[in-house]
């Protein structure tokens, strides 16, 4: 990069503030969440009662079933169910 003055450099550093920490953590947890996802989806497909509990309150149903409702897992499930 050329033609940089320090004022412009400062503006460019300011242009990328950190993303909210919780968002970053959720995205970082994706590999673990992905592993749980298929198991939960398979169970929801086979068990109508579990499926309706998930639809009513996703986080509570996950917790009751022994899954930690991490932001990544909740997000992936919402996307998966929305696409069905």
């Amino acid at each position, binding site marked *: 990069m050329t033609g940089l003055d320090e004022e412009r*450099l400062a503006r460019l*550093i300011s242009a*990328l503030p950190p993303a909210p920490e919780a*968002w970053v953590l959720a*995205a970082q947890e994706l590999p673990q969440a992905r592993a749980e996802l298929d198991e939960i989806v398979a169970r929801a497909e086979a068990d109508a009662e579990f499926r309706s509990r998930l639809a009513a309150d996703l986080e509570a149903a996950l917790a009751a079933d022994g899954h930690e409702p991490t932001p990544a897992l909740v997000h992936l499930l919402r996307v998966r169910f929305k696409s069905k």
Partner: protein
Amino acid sequence: MASTLSDSELVARCREGDQQAWADLVERFSRYVYAISVQAFRLSEADAEDVFQEVFARAYEHLDALRDDAAVRPWLAQLTRRLCIDRLRSAARERPTGEEQLDLAGSDETLTMLEEALTVHEALAESPEHCREILDRFFARDESYRTIGEALALPAGTIASRISRCLARLRELLEGRTETDPPSSSG
């Protein structure tokens, strides 16, 4: 500590199932993805959060489809832009006034500036830790001299001069870079 692996090395490790590499990749590009949705496309925080998670979820799912590992940066940028546009189109359908926002969204100028900003952050990540920390806190995190002084155990009176020295050093580092230099870490 941010990863010092190149983008392509990081992608290769993610593909091998290295979870730490994935966490580093998210860390490296999180600010860029966030800034595209909030600054270039002016999405609300709620929409930006959905786009942010969707970008990384799709990236994780489709990493194998990336033809050139070194191209992860433009790939993520394109994915983010596409999802932002989808989000705005969907809002415009629900609420006709959204069209105006759609026309203005994602100006090329802002996107170019953000790309440049990412390059600067990559160089910042290669800077000595005391410079990286103080410049990031002051400019990107918008912390006051007082907060920085307390966090880094520095007298407030020395902060301005350190910022100035570190900016000069960063400038030298960037001017010494060539187009072929591999991208390094950011975050």
